[in-house]
Every structure is written in C-alpha cells, then in structure tokens.
C-alpha cells in the first residue's frame, strides 16, 4: 500500500520548509520532495497544512500513572529500595493511557518512558510510539534504552523520610558509585570464571544492567537540577568511563562550559510548571537559547505528567519567546532527541527511508490555536 501526501508544506527539519509531496510505503517514507514521481494507491490531500515529523518526548512517564485510575496504575517510582536497576517501565506501561492519544493530537508521536526520580538507581526505560492499539508490544520502538538515575532533592527526600541511605547528596552519589563499583567487580568475576573455564552460576540481574552501562551499551540517564548535581554526574561519568545523559539540567547555564567540554547531551525541561522545590529556583526558559548557542545536543521535554505531553510544543514556543531560534527548537523536538535516544535512523526528520511518523498541522505548532489534523496512525483526527 503506497500513499501519497500532497498539498502540504514539508517541515523536514533537515531543510528549510517547502511546498511538496511525499510517498509513504510499508510504514516508511519512500520519497519526499517538491514533486514525487512514484505512483500511489491512495492520495491524501493535506489541505494546505504543515507536515512535521512526529515530535519526540525524550523524558516522560506517560503510561506509568495512567490518567483517571489512581492507585491501580500509579507505577512511576518503586520507592522501596534506593537501587532498583532491574525494574522496567515496559512492565508497568499502560498502553491505553488516555494521555497517549492526546499527546498525538499535540504532535508527539514518540515517547521515552523512564522511571521516576525517587531512587538513585531507578530502572530501565523504553521507547514507545503512538498507535491506536491496546497492546504495549505494538508500540515498542526500543527496549531497555537507558538506566535512570537520580541526584538532588528527590532521593534524599524519599529515603530521608524513611531514615535510610541516602539522606544527603553525598549519600546519593555513594549509592550510585557503589552500584557501579559492584558492577565492575561483577564483570571481573565473570571474566575470571571464563578465563578459568568455570561455569558461571552467580548471574545477578541488577549487576547485568550495571555491566551494560559500564560497557557503554546503554547510557545512565541522570536526573540533575542543580549545577552541583550535574558536576557530580560528570565526575561519576569520568570515574567509571560511562555514557550519561543529564536529565532536566535546570541550572545548565551555570555549568555550560563544563557540559560543553564533556560532550554530554542534556534533556531540558520541564519549564511549564512552578518552582516547587528549592533546586528549581533558577529555572528559566532562557536555558534553551543558551544550549542552542553552545551547540549542545539537547531535547525539549514535558516530563509528562508534570505537564501534559500534548502541550510540549507550547514549551518550545515559550523558549522562542525567550530568544531561542525557532528552527533550533523544532530540532529540540525532533532530530536532537532522536540522536540522544539513538533512533535517528528511523525518527526525527522527514527523510527517505525513515519511519512515516508524520503529522499534518492546520497551523504553526507553536501557536496554541493549531492542532494536528492528520497523523499516520489515525488518519484524519478528531478532538
């Protein structure tokens, strides 16, 4: 089945917008340009709309506290142990969460679902794309894409109340460091068994994940708001030679040189919320402008349900109001998160060979009055 989309302005992200056409076949973009030569079984008249790649919300808890359920589907944080690398967001994800459909109406078609930030070592995240199916399996883009970690106020608040380590920032770093050191020892133990040609029968599922982080197969996704926490994250990265992504990075501007030097990507947001904690004191939309100027690889995220993923685009619009380059902010919703998540071959721009993760808008996405009128999963949408 080959579909042709005509009468749209193509915002490919990699080129300036232009009036054009595209051909979609077997869920992939087969051709894109001012005119397309291939024939099609079905022609979709885009009604003069703006065709964007689906936005990517690179830090979300969508589906982990499915809306309107309360306790039964409240599964963001396993706050019973500060080290829970073995828990998986895929196991708790609710594919029928109403927020997914709403997010699609706001142009967000891909979400990276992470555990919360209660635990210094939180758990494994995964990436989903929007489909109308009621199965998680139909939505999975990639499993076990990173190990969530957390610094700052949240872990010490949660465990402080239990009078259990960590109750300070020092304690949080020590918990993370111990976990990674255990992982190093575990790798050695395994290697030793192999060298001595002994069967290894001490497989440890928590440390199997540390091994993946230490071998740079997956990044540590480290929640940090304050500058000092980001420096701690960078310190741990250096010590253990691991890949990290800094999540939130609220005080990015205070350590922009250090982050630039490290080459670590950052996840910026959420800003459409109040400064509910001390560590959010210096939160500002100006951060986006700064990160764009620095050439830092970053993503603009909702942290759903902190604010609904559906209005992620308005946060990007606010960044523009605070001086960020508009094209840059579109990259922060598309190709940059795709690169951070390692899915840029399939998502993040409208280019031949990529997945047809597409939305047609009836107006500019940063204008609150606009909405997605068509997407590749639902076709023409209704509110």
């Amino acid at each position, binding site marked *: 089945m080959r579909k042709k989309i005509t009468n749209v302005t193509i915002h490919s992200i990699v080129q300036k917008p232009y009036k054009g056409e595209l051909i979609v076949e077997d869920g992939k973009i087969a051709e894109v340009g001012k005119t397309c030569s291939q024939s099609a079984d079905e022609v979709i008249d885009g009604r003069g709309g703006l065709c964007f790649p689906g936005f990517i919300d690179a830090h979300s808890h969508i589906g982990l506290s499915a809306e309107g359920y309360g306790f039964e589907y409240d599964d963001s944080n*396993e706050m019973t142990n500060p080290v829970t690398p073995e828990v*998986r967001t895929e196991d*708790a994800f609710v594919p*029928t969460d109403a927020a997914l459909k709403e997010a699609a109406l706001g142009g967000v078609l891909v979400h990276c679902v992470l555990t919360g930030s209660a635990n210094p070592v939180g758990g494994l995240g995964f990436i989903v794309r929007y489909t109308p199916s009621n199965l*998680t399996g139909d939505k999975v883009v990639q499993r076990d894409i990173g190990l969530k970690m957390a610094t700052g106020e949240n872990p010490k608040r949660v465990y402080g109340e239990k009078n259990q380590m960590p109750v300070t920032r020092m304690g949080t770093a020590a918990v993370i460091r111990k976990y990674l050191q255990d992982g190093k020892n575990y790798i050695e133990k395994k290697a030793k068994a192999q060298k001595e040609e002994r069967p*290894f*029968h001490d497989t440890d599922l928590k440390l199997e994940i540390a091994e993946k982080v230490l071998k740079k197969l997956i990044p540590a996704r480290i929640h940090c708001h304050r500058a000092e926490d980001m420096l701690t994250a960078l310190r741990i990265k250096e010590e253990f030679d691991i890949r990290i992504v800094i999540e939130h990075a609220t005080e990015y501007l205070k350590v922009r040189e250090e982050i630039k030097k490290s080459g670590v990507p950052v996840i910026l947001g959420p800003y459409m919320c109040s400064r509910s904690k001390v560590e959010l004191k210096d939160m500002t939309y100006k951060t986006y402008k700064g990160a764009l100027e620095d050439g830092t690889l970053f993503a603009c995220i909702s942290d759903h349900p902190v604010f609904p993923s559906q209005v992620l685009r308005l946060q990007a619009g606010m960044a523009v109001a605070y001086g960020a380059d508009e094209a840059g902010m579109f990259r922060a919703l598309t190709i940059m998160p795709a690169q951070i998540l390692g899915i840029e071959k399939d998502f993040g721009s409208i280019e031949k060979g990529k997945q047809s993760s597409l939305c047609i808008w009836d107006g500019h996405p940063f204008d609150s009055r606009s909405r997605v009128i068509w997407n590749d999963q639902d076709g023409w949408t209704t509110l």
Partner: protein
Amino acid sequence: MLIVKGAQIWKDRDLKRLDFSVGEGKIAAFSPSLLPGPQDEVLNLSGHYVYPGLIDPHTHVGLLEETTGNFAGDDVNETTSPATAGVRAIDGINPLDPGIRNACNYGVTTVCVMPGSANVIGGEGVVIKTAGKSVDTMVVSSAKKIVKMAFGRNITWTWSKKEKYPSTRLAVGAVLREKLNAAKNYMANPERVNTYEMEVLANLLKKEAIARIHVANLEDIETIDRITREYEIDYVLDHASALHTNPEYAKTLRVPVILGPLNVAGKSFQSYDVTCASVKVLLEAGLLVSVMSDAPVIPLNLVRLQMFLIDRYRLNRADILDLFTENPAKTLGIEKQTGSLDVGKDADFIVLDGDIFDYRSHVRSTYIYGKACGGEDYEMDS
C-alpha cells in the same frame, strides 16, 4: 461391579441412553443394556441424567475456610515475602472445610486448590478430589505440578501497604525474573545447597511444573508473556479478565486460560472487563478455555450459575460443559484420569434429576471413584 442403569448419560459431547459399569473405582464398560451378574450392585437411575463430575481448576477451598472467621481458617496468602515458592497448598488445606463439602454436594468432584494472589510467587497448588477426611488420600497424583503466581494490583496493594518491594507494577515482573534467575543459578551450581523453594522453581525451568498466573489486564498479560518466553516456562493465564479485548493477540498466545469468576462486582479497575462474553470470544480465538469459581469467591454450591450465565450467549452446550470438565482436566494434566465418562477413567459422575442446564434440576448424588459421597440431599440430611 456397580451397574448404572436407565439414565441419560453425557458421553462424547451428547446425552445418550446407555448403561455403564464401574469396577475398582473406574468405568469398566458402556452398553445400551447391561445385565448385572449375581455379585453386582445395581443403581437404577431411570428418569435421571448422569454427567461427568465437574472440575474447578482454580479455588482456595480448604485454605480460605468458610465459617471460621477472618483469622482462624485463613491460610491462603503467606504475605511475609513477595515470593514464597516453597509453601504448599496441601499443608494448609482443611479437608473438612464446608467449602469442600459444598463442592462435592453440588457436583464438583475435582478442584485445584492454590495459594492466593498477594505474592508474585504464591506457592505450590494441588489438585484434589472433593471427598475424604485426609487430604493426602484426596490428591490427584497425575496432575501437573503447579506453581501459583500473580501480577497486577493485588500484589502492589499488598506490598505497598507494607512499604515493601514490589510496591509498583514496575517491580512485579522483576521479582519473577529475579527468582527464575536464582533458580537458573541454582541448577547450574554443582555445589548447591538444596532448598525446597529452589527445587520448586527449578521444576518450572525443567518444564516439570506449570506456572498458574493470576492476571487481569492486558498489559500485564504482555509482561507475563515476555518473561515466560525469556525463561522458557509453561504457563496458564488465570482470570485474564481483559484478554478478550484483543482476540487477535489472544490467538498468538497459545496458552490455556481459566476465566472467572464471571458473576462478581468490579471491586477494582482491573475487574472492569469481566464478562461472560469473554468465554465466547476466547473459544472462537481457539484457546483452551476453562471456567473457575475462585471459591470461596463464588461458593461452589453456585457452581452451575456461571454455566447458566454462559448459556445465555448461545454457545454449543457441549462446549459449555467442556469448560467445566474436559478443558480444566486438560489444563491440569488429568484428562486421562477424569473429566469425561470413558472406559478406564475414574468413575467420577453426578446424577441429576433433569438436564444440567435446567436451573430447576438438582444434583441428587455425586460419585467419586464410583462411590456415592454427596449430593444436594446429603446436605439437607446433615
């Protein structure tokens, strides 16, 4: 020999006018007319209907006793650890529980009794006949070994209240993975120290036992499917309240399902999808479907109520009876022993004074291993 004469009997998916004989607890022969010898005992059942004894593949009778209050006879959940593979239902069953007597009197001759759903791994279940004073003599030894498990809100409800792991659905699957991994390590270790818990889990990995997994919602079924594939263990879905919402997906699972209880109020969001229609949908999807009472959730004196409710969906009645006889027998691995009236099988049968689908008909007597041991009248007498 016992010669049963004159009844309409349910055989080969239909009512037939046949006599049959019973010897040494097993069905010996069928014939349109059997002539009793001088030593034979004759049971004349003219005007009556004989069906195979019903099988309830998921109950807590004897473990969660009736009439004993909230503590004394409640032995269904060992809620001191979220994984208690080492506990066994047989050690908690009171064979004199009125719930078991009810089962027998109302036509259920075999029940599977399992721990509850508060733990990710609850413990070993057991299949028993419903007559006897010593549970050891009641055990159906041909049954598969059973390890009860659970996913979803019952787990997180239990453990979050204690502020213990697993307090969220994030960690439920992790508990199962952790234990199966421990069993793998155990099996691989030549210097292992034998523990009953690890032996039970090792049985799963060796496919000498099946996991019986309490689950309601679809996303948890997907998680179960992923983990059981990872560790290559056989499983049965118990309750599976939302599986019928995606029949195409159900087709891909190829596992037995045990639905029910079907006539309950939704006490949680996870019971929202409970409907008798699920039986029809999942049979059409080609799955091996059985129905449970979850007794004492539905007490077994009401066992036929679910049959009547399913009958409203106008399924083939032979298919409906299979839900309560042959299908649970196959699921439990006891189909060579019981579940239908056939030569060589246990003489587990029930005598009704009318068609089993007629709500006015009563179970007049229940026979297990060819011995009369209950019936609705028995209860009235006692």
